């Protein structure tokens, strides 16, 4: 029964190859996008740490996005 399912009446190669190509491509794009996102979060964190204490406080007071990015970055690290 499993052999029949894999063979798909002779079309198995085409069906499984199609699904595999879609799955692998989508997974590769997902992991690449995730890696880029993490890289930018990390770079933001590094850039933020170069600021003086006054600049840091001002950035956190004025930008909720900066607070959220830092919160996410600190969860990862």
């Amino acid at each position: 029964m499993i052999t029949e399912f894999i063979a798909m009446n002779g079309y198995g190669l085409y069906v499984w190859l199609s699904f595999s190509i879609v799955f692998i491509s989508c997974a590769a794009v997902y992991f690449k996008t995730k890696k880029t996102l993490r890289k930018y979060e990390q770079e933001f964190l590094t850039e933020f740490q170069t600021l003086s204490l006054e600049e840091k406080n001002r950035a956190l007071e004025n930008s909720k996005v900066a607070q959220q990015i830092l919160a996410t970055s600190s969860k990862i690290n």
Partner: protein
Amino acid sequence: MFKFFSSSNIYSIIQKLIKFIHSIFFLVLIIGLTFALVLSPPDYIQGDSVRIMYVHVPSAWLGLACFFFITLLSILNFIFKIKNFYFINKSIAPIGLLFTCLAIVTGSLWGQPTWGTWWAWDARLTSMLVLMLFYIFYILVFKLLNKEELIIKVSSIIAIIGSINLPIIKYSVEWWTTLHQLSSIKITGSSSIHSAMLLPLMVMLLVFLLYAALIFLMKYKTEIIRIKKKNIKRI
């Protein structure tokens, strides 16, 4: 209303949506794959090769839909000069390219057992290849040009010219004699596809939509962080 569209609100919504999609994606994927590979019946002519439809059709639809949105936002950006549309387009384009390439490759894999050939210079296939080229040109503009204003102008021109190809893709099977079959699913009028195949197709479409939304949100979030990083000393 304007407060709702502030960058902090958008960022917070993006994070919530990413979490939500992550939580339901695998469940929907498993349901979709079960329907597509196990529960849906084989076609009476094409046999089990019809199962390729469950990845080919959603890929093609999303490839077309992404370019439609890019064109729409490019036109709106020309009129209203909303910078966010530029970042949205930059995030959508790679997703559209991915799905267009997948539609071409899976179409080729479906073509071999059905038509006896991997490729033919048929109107539908060629117009999809042209769409892929437009995506490549569009993405190259972002990679090769430096000035933002120039990027917006050139990319918008490419999107508007490329949009002429969208109705050609849609109606190519009706205007010319092609190897590709006519549309089985119609928005207006009755569809010729049986519900036993339509349901798995819709579930797989949902899987692809969720995936596309997830990648878009991650890319858009990256763009927000990139801008904030660039302007960190001005905050």
